[in-house]
């Protein structure tokens, strides 16, 4: 009988004890544990891996050279790259080659970050935008236009919430 008390009842009581202690403590100290998403959202950790970006060099040229190494590394096979040759008239990236098509199937993607590891130029990075939900399957195919930074450094900025959340202290 004492075994039952020792192994069952006592731990339960101890657990309730923790609950009681928390209840007794001042509410304010833990007020910011919970944010009221989608009205509020918090800055993500620096190494968070969510939405992909194709980054640019400071001079505006794309870093991506269309080498398809990301597609080769991808365990979910969700990346499709089609390359083409740069000309002096139409130059997208330094060197000979650039990606003319770059698509990621976000439904398939498991956000493992292997593509980022494989990229020889640091072109593809996974950043903090986690609001990837959508209504139609086709909309999950992120094309190159969607993935590419509009200006150098855009990917490093906190993302703008699609549902209108505002950043609160973390």
């Amino acid at each position, binding site marked *: 009988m004492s075994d039952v008390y020792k192994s069952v009842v006592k731990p339960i009581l101890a657990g309730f004890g923790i609950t009681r202690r928390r209840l007794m403590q001042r509410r304010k100290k833990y007020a910011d544990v919970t944010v009221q998403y989608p009205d509020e959202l918090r800055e993500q950790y620096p190494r968070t891996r969510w939405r992909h970006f194709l980054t640019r060099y400071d001079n505006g040229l794309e870093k991506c*050279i*269309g*080498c*398809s*190494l990301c*597609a*080769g590394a991808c365990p979910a096979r969700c990346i*499709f*790259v089609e*390359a*083409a*040759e740069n000309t002096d008239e139409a130059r997208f990236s330094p*060197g*000979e*080659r650039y990606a003319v098509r770059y698509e990621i199937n976000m439904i398939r993607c498991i956000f493992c970050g292997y593509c980022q590891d494989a990229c*020889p*130029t640091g072109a593809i990075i996974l950043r903090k935008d986690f609001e990837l939900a959508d209504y139609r399957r086709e909309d999950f195919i992120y094309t190159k236009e969607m993935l590419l930074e509009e200006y150098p450094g855009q990917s490093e900025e906190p993302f703008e919430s699609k549902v209108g959340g505002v950043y609160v202290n973390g």
Partner: protein
Amino acid sequence: MAAAPTTDTVTISINDVEIEVPKGELIVDAVKRLGLEIPIFCYHSRMKPVGMCRMCLVEVGFKQPDGSVRKMPKPQAGCTLPASEGMAVYTDTELVHKDRRGVLEFLLINHPLDCPICDRGGECPLQNNTLFYGPSTSRFIELKRHLPKAFPLSRYVTLDLERCIQCGRCVRFTEEISGDAQLAFRFRGANMQPTSFQLTEFESKFSGNVIEICPVGALTSTKYRFRARPWDLETKPAICTVCSNGCSVWFDYRVGKFVRLNGRVNEAVNEEWTCDRGKFGHDFYNSPKRLLAPALRKEDALRTANWAEAYAAILEAFEPGGNAVAALTGPMVSNESYYLLQKLFRGVFRSNNLDHRWTRHLSAASDRLESKMGMPTVATSIEAFEHKSAVLAIGTSLADEEPILFLRLRKAWFKNGTKVVVACDRDTDADSFAHLVLRYRPGTEMALAGGLLAAAVESGRATVPDPVREDLKRYSPSAAASATGVPEDRIREAADILGPNAAIVTTHRLLDVADAQGTLEYLAGLAMCLRAEFNLYALGANDQGALELGIHPELLPSGVALADAEAAAEVGRTMGIEIPREPGLGTHELLRACADGRIKALWLVGCDPFALHADRDLVQRALEGVEFLVVQDIVETEATSYASVILPMLGPAEQDGTYTNMERRVQRLRQVIPDAGDAKPAWRIFAEAMLRAQPQTPFFSAEEIMEEIARVAPAFEVARYDRLGHEGTRL
């Protein structure tokens, strides 16, 4: 280089394992017997070793009488070292590893390491060897050699000199295999560059092969440039259907689209080579002019229709049957489709108006050398040419018409000293290695062939029946010499060279000349008298198959002549149809009959008469004159605009089927690329048309058709799918 056929063996030890190998076998090959691998760059088993890259260094010693091994002071190149008695080879010592690291560090000094954008990246021997045997870092911090990148050496080949590791494979290929020697090393030392003369166009007919044998990305394909990476591609075995050689190839495709083609090893046919025509000639799969849906002419405009409408229209138009309907075929159609086409025409439309021939001379069933002289028209396999003592190639430019046979013939000359006599009315690539060149005046083929036979008769080496001897008086060597412009002594010498172990080669191109039949009979006679082999090779991918399977107005499958009533009836019974008795018309007559309006409905299967027939004007009148024209093709052609019905057909690699090459080798091509649009395999089109005309159990697969072909034409018994080997089987 393959070991010479010898029974001499020597005992060597590799990593202290004793093994018996043929004497003189190169160490780089010998170690493979133990499942070991020596890394290589410059060595290629089909070319002479040169020892340029030093990648294959091994430690070598010799057994001393006391049993110890005395090593040579320096490592040796395994690719230039023949095995000899008592040799002890070490491939796995610390010294060898250090050497390999050193060699690779040297090779990488000037290599740009632009692997991410290099087309070779992912399938690159330099990458692989560096990963397995190379150093992890380089001590070289100076500037690398800089040279122009992506230099267009020809329409097909792009040269990146920075990536070149100067192994010399490409240079040796053009010298030893293709024989045009259009690439050479210019300059020396670190500046050594494999380029063409004065950077002019590299216009070899086999330039595509250097792309494949380049161990780095220095020579890359212009057409494949940046199209895909190796890991994007799916690869399946296939055969090339551009010419009649039927090379084994790898088809590389990406998301269902054909991307590129590489040579696949088939020792009996192409070894591992391809020609440029084949390697770069498969663009039609991705052509913007691909026919993807059936179309029907309504009120003077072609409108997309469905298959049912198309079949209904066709069956209605072909209903009269007999002499009022006809079909012409092109070369890129499978055996199964040819068979069903002739069954459809003979059985349902009761017509023998079928032809696959587009040459000016169309030999009639009674003219054929098999029936007339008992002489097979295809005797020598491609492989057998290697061991012929002499070959006469007449009336053909082999490098253009039978490119892989050309390579084999050149190899025969290069390795075994085969004497090649080239007789053509123009310069050919084979002249470069010919023992004798007979340059005759255009149109005098018959005089030359007669002269050769007469010379053989005069020398007493050949005996001919008296009527032939009388006939040959016209072509005594001196008369032939004055007619053809070839010196008399050359004609005599050429006739002397030929003998029992010789082969005479000509192609259907000879059927384009005047007196084709006479020329062929003289040549066959010459071969017969000298007990040599005579070969009249087909030109189109499956022309030989079309001939064997009765796409001919007077011949039935298995070569039975229509005139032979009993045999023809027997063939008909096996096919389950009644063979119409009246012989059909040949291509020219057919077209004329179309122009006259005698033929009401014409079915073109995978052929563009404008491209294939010599008389454009006649073709135009024929296509305009015929009431109902079915154009069944892979891509849009000039003939499509005349069509009443367009039937889209799948390409060879998009369907299952077999093809008969010029040496009568039947090879299977499985479906590689998914179906394009609504297009169907040709055999399915014919099967469905037959089904709509007469209720019956249709054929569901190409394999079933081959089962029936094997029953009708027993030669094809070996080609049944369960028996057909990987390298195909000769009939």
